[in-house]
């Protein structure tokens, strides 16, 4: 056992391959950034649908949120990568294939749009009706009210929760290796196939992610504490 213990902490092996592993991490970051953009925009749209005056819009919004919030990331990833291209291909009568990166961004983006939509909605419903009445009384259009009064307050209120969701999303990007996006875990498995030394590599990967996420969430926690105090004042 102690031999294995020594082996797994012999991180020189991990360090040896650091450049391709680093490239893999960049891919994680890229998937994260693109998926975050999708999640924010689609999530905002879904939240607006959910509080719309018209019932069909509300139904669509609620369906969207419930569908994606309750869906496991991995099955969504597989579905978007293997089923969606076929469906689109049937409609436009051509063979369609998604680049794995695209599938990853779509799948994770839409799953997290469900979570963001709920966060947005909670924030919007917490805004006092009087604020909106004042806007309308001054002749502001609904769009103006949304952008100048509602959203600034929603962002301020939900920033801590949004930060947690972003961190969650970043953790979720680790599964994209399963559809051959060359992220950190994918490169780790490539190296293992070549070198047959899984222990230091998996341990190294775990440690790397742990350190990154730990740094991010500690910062987020400290920031959120300060932020909550600031907006209460």
């Amino acid at each position, binding site marked *: *056992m102690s031999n*294995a*213990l020594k*082996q*797994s902490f012999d991180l020189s092996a991990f360090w040896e391959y650091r450049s391709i592993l680093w490239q893999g991490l960049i891919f994680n970051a890229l998937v994260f950034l693109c998926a975050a953009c999708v999640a924010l925009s689609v999530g905002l749209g879904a939240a607006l649908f959910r509080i719309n005056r018209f019932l069909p819009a509300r139904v669509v919004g609620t369906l969207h949120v*419930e*569908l994606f919030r*309750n*869906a*496991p*990331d*991995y*099955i*969504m990833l*597989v*579905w978007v990568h*293997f*089923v969606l291209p*076929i*469906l689109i291909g049937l409609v436009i009568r051509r063979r369609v294939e998604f680049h794995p990166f695209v599938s990853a961004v779509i799948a994770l983006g839409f799953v997290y749009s469900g979570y963001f939509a709920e966060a947005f909605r909670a924030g919007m419903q917490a805004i006092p009706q009087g604020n909106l009445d004042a806007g309308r009384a001054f002749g502001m259009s609904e769009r103006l009210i949304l952008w100048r009064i509602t959203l600034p307050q929603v962002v301020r209120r939900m920033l801590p929760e949004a930060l947690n969701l972003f961190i969650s999303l970043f*953790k*979720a990007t*680790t*599964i994209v*290796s*399963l559809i051959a996006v060359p992220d950190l*875990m994918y490169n780790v498995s490539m190296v293992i196939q070549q070198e047959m030394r*899984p*222990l230091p590599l*998996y*341990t190294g*990967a*775990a440690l790397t*992610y*742990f350190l990154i*996420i*730990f740094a991010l*969430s500690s910062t987020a926690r400290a920031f959120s504490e300060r932020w909550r105090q600031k907006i209460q004042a």
Partner: protein
Amino acid sequence: MGNWERLVWNQRDVLFAGFAVTIEVCAIAFVVAILGGLMLCLARLYVAPLRWVAIVLIEFFRDTPIFVQLMWVAYVWPEVFGFPNDFFTAGWLALGLQSSGYLAETFRAGIEGVPRGQREAAFSAGMSPVQTLQRVVMPQVALSSAPSIVNQFTVIVKSSTLVSVITVPDLMSQSQKLVNVWYEPIEILTATAGLYIAFVFLISLTGKLIADRLRQRFGLAAS
């Protein structure tokens, strides 16, 4: 589409077998998560020499992505610790440990949220610290944590799809086998996705109903 019948309905035994494995893994992981979370939380708060060990473990289990943790537990632990011996165990162990980190923090927030006056009242009545914990604090923590606990179960179910990667024959893995046999992914994968979504949705719904009922009976603000 007759395909649905051929590919999904006729294969329902295969799929249900996978679903059964999924439920098994999730149930065991859930128990591990609650017990583990409880132990970590109590160790952190009340067992002074173990405090930092508990904190490090909690942070480690929470901050490591589940997929990475799964691979690590499945491939590194057997060499280093001698167990887990099979992938099924590795599956529920990894899932359980990750959730135990989250639940440890949930329990801690719950314990710290019980007003101090209640503890003082118990001590004044002559109850020992252990009794106080058992009879006054923990029941309230259980009530206020209930929604988070249910939520953590949905997280476990959603993450359990990854155990297919370490060859545990769960629902995800069975549906992938079917796709490999029949080469027609649309119906099989859509049905599988639908099954997972419906299952998670039902769990959350049940959780919400239970939370509402508890709130009515006990009047506590179950967030």
